[in-house]
């Protein structure tokens, strides 16, 4: 067995994760934020490891 097997497993798991996620929470392009946060005037609201929950 080579790394081809393990790398393929990693990629397959990643694709499965995205597919499962999209079945429960589809994307909505009409709610898309501005392309750049910088200069948008919109407060940043993403989750981040250093932030306590808001």
């Amino acid at each position: 067995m080579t790394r081809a097997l393990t790398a393929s497993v990693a990629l397959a798991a990643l694709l499965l994760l995205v597919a499962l996620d999209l079945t429960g929470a589809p994307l909505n392009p009409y709610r898309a934020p501005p392309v750049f946060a910088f200069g948008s005037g919109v407060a940043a609201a993403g989750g981040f490891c250093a932030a306590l929950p808001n």
Partner: protein
Amino acid sequence: MISATLDRTRAPGLTARRSALVAAALVAIGVLSLFGGARYGLMLAIGLGFGIALEGLRFGFAGPWRAMILRREPAGILAQLLSIALVSIVAIPLLSSHPGELTGAQAPIGWAMVGGAFVFGAAMQVVLGCGSGTLVNAGSGNPIGLLALPFFAIGSFAGAYGLIWWTGLGALPILRLSGWGGLGVTLVLLGITAAVFYRLGAPEARRLPRRYVIAALVLALLAIANLMVAGQPWGVVYGLGLWVAKGAQGLGMDLSGSAFWTAPGSVTRLHESLLTDYTSLTDLGLIAGAFGVASWRRGGLAQPLPRYPARAWVATIVAGFLLGYSSRLAFGCNVGAFFSGISTGSLHGWVWFAAAFAGAALGIRLRPHLGLEAAK
């Protein structure tokens, strides 16, 4: 003669594979931009860039720390500090001029934070993979990284679950270096730290290879792009915990006992796609980018899988979980706390660095006894 002939016959397959990799990346970015929004497509592209840079330039965090502690080779750490300095030159002034629009990786220093950083440093040396490194290793087919990753994610979810309790054990207010003065202090501290590592390095190892300089520059550019596009710095572990939280919620697990996962911001993100979460997008990009580089290389995935004793696999599972759990208590891993924390002026990044480096010294000693390398 024979090998030249074989190379020629393999070339069309290799070219087709490389073309398919480029096409797949462009399609993924394009489709996400179209159906989700251009910002999310850009974040995926940035994540792919991180993965390609780290795997392509064979650069990381755990390896250089190990090289410094074991062999007194400071080059990797010097490159990390250079990259952090480059980001800070842009990020710290921008955070002051655009408050709210842009946020830093700023967190309180506390007992749990220091302890978490120490444990993270030890665990990352056990599996030889940090926050970004574990994802890159998994994507490039490293079986230790692949096994550690799901437990890293579970640990991140569990650590976030009890984060408020842990932080309640005692923490200072958030201490940050801001504005031009804050940038000056950050650069001086980075310079002093680099000088100390340079002096501690073995005389014959006191140099910075071109590959590391390129890696530092590329990582800095990508980290600045991450901040400008997402409004927040590069991070890793939040996304992994969110993946498990969404899965747990989908399986009917009650998250109401967690102050973290029931906070309004968390609830919103639990109901939205992972493809709209910035750290998830860069995490996905790290794995896919590393996979792309490993597949791109001639024979990149042909390396046989190593054999380890059972205790090594058990150690990997435990260390993977600890990586996730401890990095939540520490308000980030080598990326979210060390790289992004220092480069956005958070003093917790400096404390994280000191605690994690001490933990790394312990992890290096543990690794041979856990069957992950020949015992000395």
